[in-house]
């Protein structure tokens, strides 16, 4: 079944067509990778899907609902959660609290429940903390729970951002270059984590330049070049595709 469907999604910046009439279907299983040279429009496409930018034309349909032009927080509430190319942690919070923020959507309580701190509120807080600890264990950060988020090494910050996104219990998780800046060892662990996320039933759509990560995780690959989709399919066919090879080697279109 199709979880996310892009229909002719287009975004222009002045005369530049950053994303040009993209059609893409992401099924509700497994991992889809979005690859392409720098400037191909991958991050812009992520921004269009997650509501940080609005398409000039086309529709974004998620879980049967048209979410085109909705604000990011509404799209997150619908079950589509993203991470960022440049890690965006909440610096003044601890590692644990960062993940607790991720539980925001699935809990409630505002000013008065904070002030009164009733038994029900404390119960929810305990559950949130338990869940956050589980997720930190899942990404291998259980030893860093009480540290300041800003004190983490770069690779750990990336893992923390993923744990935080998972706390929002997304149906679809968008990862924007999760392996950027990671060591070979860390990339390998990241690949394992991404597969594990998919196995737990969360669909993953990722942008990635690290081909090892892409080949080790993706069930389907879509290739963008100059804002257009030039290929789509399982890894084995995409890597043999002459248009893809041309785009990556810069020989002009075959």
């Amino acid at each position, binding site marked *: 079944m199709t979880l996310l469907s892009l229909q002719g999604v287009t975004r222009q910046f002045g005369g530049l067509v950053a994303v040009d009439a993209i059609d893409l279907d992401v099924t509700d299983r497994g991992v889809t990778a979005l690859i392409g040279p720098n400037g191909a429009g991958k991050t812009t496409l992520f921004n269009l899907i997650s509501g940080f930018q609005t398409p000039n034309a086309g529709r974004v349909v998620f879980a049967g609902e048209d979410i085109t032009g909705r604000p990011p927080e509404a799209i*997150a509430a619908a079950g589509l959660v993203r991470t960022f190319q440049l890690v965006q942690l909440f610096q003044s919070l601890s590692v644990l609290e960062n993940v607790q923020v991720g539980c925001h959507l699935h*809990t409630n309580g505002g000013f008065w429940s*904070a002030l009164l701190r009733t038994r029900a509120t404390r119960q929810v807080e305990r559950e949130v903390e338990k869940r956050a600890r589980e997720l930190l264990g899942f990404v291998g950060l259980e030893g860093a729970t009480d540290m300041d988020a800003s004190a983490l090494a770069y690779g750990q910050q990336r893992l923390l951002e993923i744990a935080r996104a998972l706390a929002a219990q997304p149906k679809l998780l968008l990862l924007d270059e999760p392996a950027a800046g990671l060591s070979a060892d860390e990339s390998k662990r990241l690949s394992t984590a991404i597969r594990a996320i998919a196995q737990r039933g969360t669909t993953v759509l990722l942008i990635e330049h690290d081909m090892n990560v892409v080949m080790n995780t993706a069930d389907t690959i879509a290739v963008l070049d100059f804002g257009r989709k030039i290929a789509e399919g399982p890894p084995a066919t995409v890597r043999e595709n002459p248009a893809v090879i041309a785009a990556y080697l810069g020989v002009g279109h075959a």
Partner: protein
Amino acid sequence: MTNSPAIIYHDRLRRGLAALPWAVACAMLAYAFIAGGYLVTIMSFAMIYAVFIIGLNVFMGFAGQVSFGHNAFAALSGYASAVLTATYYWDPMAAFVVGLGLALLVALVVGWPTLRLKGHYLAMATLAIGLIVYEIAIQWQSVTQGYMGISGISPLGIGGYEVVSDRGKLFTLMIIVGLSSLAAARLRASRFGRALAAIAGSEDAARALGIDVAHYKLAAFLVSAAYAALAGSLFVHVVEFVSPEVFGLNMVVVAFTMLYVGGIGTLGGPILGAVIVSLLPEIFRGFKDYQDLFYGAGLILLLIYAPKGLAALGNIVPRRGKA
């Protein structure tokens, strides 16, 4: 990991430095009680400022926003308390409820449109509202009596019970500061407080996790306006007099100094900042003509070596010997 004498000494130094400002603040409050007189008045003003800054810290420290105009909310509530008790003989508590409502209403009207915008629009709007309220306090003479101000405001009290002695006022204010601080601590350690910290950290990441940024900014703005309103009403009942100058731009400058010296974003910072900064003019008075120079130099040194303020003074000794 070995606990060598050097490391133990190091940890003691850290803890000692962290405790120092608290020791000074507590000692001064205790001394004010025993000695009485002028120091009681200074400490009472410090406590009123503490209430104001605890609230400002929710908006600026927790949520990472900027406001130059919270004096307006103190002024609105302060004048409501003054006029209703001095002219119409209302009970102070009832007058405060009206003042609080007025301050929240104005905060809502200013905050609703501006908090949806990114950047400095809110800071500019708050600066404007502070100046507008100040002008109204001067010009609307039939109600505020302009520069003359309003005297004969009833003392701090609930129902028939009134606090008249200076020590009693200070004690009451200390209890209010304690409760205000407790409320802020509970806010910080909740879903609400985490959402504010998320907005301070990254608005984009907060939205991507489903946090309605505009909603929470407005909520933090209203909470801090409520604290400001409480501080405004407390002031007029403690001094039993009000004039426009009381809630002028100077109040914002003093509050900012206290917030940054004490430690913005920390829980203890507002109280420490309010008490210590209130004492500084008394300490530097000995330097006579050079007092402003020493005062300024002291502030600069503090902000360079302890950028998180007095509440994090222990951090000027780097952490060592711990993972």
